[in-house]
């Protein structure tokens, strides 16, 4: 193991441990409330990134899975008369529902690329929202109410926290495994140049669809947690266009297509958002601030925190060890198909295109 590896591992484990003991250290429910919502978005943003970050297809329809997970959990709880902690047992099923929905959705939407794909996901999203409004089983405009739970008030948030924590940790692990696998390499090849990837033998449709389905599962599960925690899902909160954009913003802020980036973005944005919502009583000022933050992030740091920081560190290390390691191969900023994340070692010291190609062959 290189020194960088050791640092990465110990850092990740430390973060994991810190997140695991967080509700034991901070017992104030107002603080653990922040924790629950943040973990919900850590999971959602990381899952979104498994598809959109790695493949470059920007989905603005993942709220379909979030809402469906929430609605499935709600309907099953109501119809099967589940109470208390039993409801958490429904989460794997919610994930399955997300996966099943993702197959036809993906088959339809992945026929097209770029802007058309984005619009396709938005159209499917609106179809689902309207179904939630109009179907008999979803409770229409009033939505679905969760049963009250007789947990102790002081530790009320903890079961939700750990459910969200398990899903978030699982998603990040999955994302990490995919990123270093052949499958992840195929996804990134598609992102860089889909036709060339096909030419090299990548079964693009299959690969894209698989990652779409995989990324739907944690989003649907976390939707179930969210429903049980907020105790209410209605069509406008379950299928919320702001959810899609928030998740995308988190991934962009942290670093699109990196493992830790989306989680980092969620850790920064979600608590800030909750804090602002409490401080600024009127929703419109919050909207203006949110939009402004968005613009600043994209215009100042278009590639996100992790890639930018990683590049700075690499530059600094190179300067220190000047001459001992050839690093001149890195293409200029903004050039096409550059593998920008220096924390992965699969592209270091050689041309990224070459590494992609050799890994696929």
């Amino acid at each position, binding site marked *: 193991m290189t020194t960088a590896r050791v640092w990465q591992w110990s850092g990740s484990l430390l973060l994991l441990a810190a997140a695991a003991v967080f509700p034991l250290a901070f017992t104030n429910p107002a603080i653990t409330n922040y924790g629950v919502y943040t973990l919900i978005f850590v999971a959602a943003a990381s899952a979104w990134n498994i598809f959109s970050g790695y493949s470059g297809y920007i989905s603005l329809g993942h709220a379909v899975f979030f809402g469906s997970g929430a609605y499935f959990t709600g309907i099953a709880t109501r119809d099967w008369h589940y109470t208390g902690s039993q409801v958490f047992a429904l989460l794997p099923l919610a994930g399955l529902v997300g996966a099943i929905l993702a197959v036809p959705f993906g088959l*339809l939407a992945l026929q*097209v690329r770029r802007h*058309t794909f984005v*619009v396709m996901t938005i*159209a499917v999203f609106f179809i689902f929202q309207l179904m939630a409004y109009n179907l008999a089983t979803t409770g229409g405009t009033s939505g679905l109410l969760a049963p009250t739970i007789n947990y102790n008030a002081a530790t009320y948030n903890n079961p939700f926290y750990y459910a969200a924590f398990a899903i978030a940790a699982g998603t990040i692990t999955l994302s990490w495994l995919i990123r270093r696998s052949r499958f992840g390499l195929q996804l990134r090849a598609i992102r860089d140049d889909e036709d060339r990837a096909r030419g090299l033998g990548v079964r693009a449709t299959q690969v894209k669809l698989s990652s779409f389905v995989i990324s739907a599962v944690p989003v649907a599960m976390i939707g179930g947690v969210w429903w049980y925690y907020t105790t209410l899902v209605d069509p406008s909160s379950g299928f919320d266009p702001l959810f899609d954009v928030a998740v995308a913003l988190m991934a962009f802020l942290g670093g699109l297509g990196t493992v830790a980036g989306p989680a980092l973005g969620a850790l920064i944005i979600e608590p800030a958002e909750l804090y602002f919502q409490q401080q600024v009583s009127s929703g419109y000022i919050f909207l203006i601030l949110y939009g402004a933050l968005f613009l600043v992030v994209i215009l100042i740091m278009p590639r996100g925190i992790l890639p930018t920081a990683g590049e700075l560190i690499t530059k600094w290390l190179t300067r220190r060890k000047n001459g001992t390691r050839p690093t001149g191969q890195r293409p200029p900023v903004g050039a096409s*198909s550059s593998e920008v994340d220096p924390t992965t070692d699969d592209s270091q010291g050689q041309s990224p295109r070459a590494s992609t190609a050799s890994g696929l062959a």
Partner: protein
Amino acid sequence: MARFLQAVADGISGGAVYALMAAGLTLIFGVLDIINIAQGILVVLAAYLSYALSVHLQLDPLLGLVITVPVMFVLGVIIQWAFIRRLRGRERTAMSLLVCYAVAVIIEGALYAEFGGTPVTIHMSYATSPTAQVHVLGFYLGYIYLIGFGLAVVAIAGIYLLLYRTKFGRSIRATTQDAVAARLIGINVDRVAAVTFGIGVAVTAAGGMVFGATNAFNPDSGYDLISRLLSIVILGGLGSIGGALVAAMFMVTVEEIVNIWQPTWAVVVYYAALVIVLFLRPNGLFGKKAVRAQ
């Protein structure tokens, strides 16, 4: 049958306004290769401008276009110049969507701050009252729909004249075909982009005025509008103005027809139509074959 034909008539007259707003969107896409998702909220902003002018200055909304069109044009140029122009590189598609969305959110917040969330509608005594309608060939058409239809025809004709009869229009078309080549032969692509964005946004002034006179709107209306407009431009084939016109008429008519039997599901049919058409024809009805990209 009579209701069916009435629905078709409503669809065509109502569709013209959507066609106008969609034409702006598709024009921007053609030149800049970005989708301006802020178009929906810009329509609402224009509607509020007309509303404010008519309430506070007692200015007739039609006359108010003399003010709102230039205002929206300048706003469009500013958005392009300040934000869109700076986007470069591989993730430009995604980032342009997010930038436009951010602009939309800011405008939405500002509109809430200024006007609140209560739905309002633009009143024009001679055009929007229930009795202000004309009875032709067995159809009833409100004057406001006729005005909207007329405005749309004039504006679209204007855009066509600009594109096909002026030197500047030729440079817009050249940029649409190949921005790099256009730059090489001396076209000021940045200026073309800014002006095109301005024109694409300026049409929302007319569209917003008619939209505001025919619907009750609040700052939230932008979401519904943009999802419709997106469906229309995608269905028509991105970058094709003619396609946007046909698709707008088609979509609004289909919605009106379904609305006769199934009011709750009319909007679902609208999006389902989009999904089905795209499944069969990934480039839309009139789209050019996509260039090798992603």
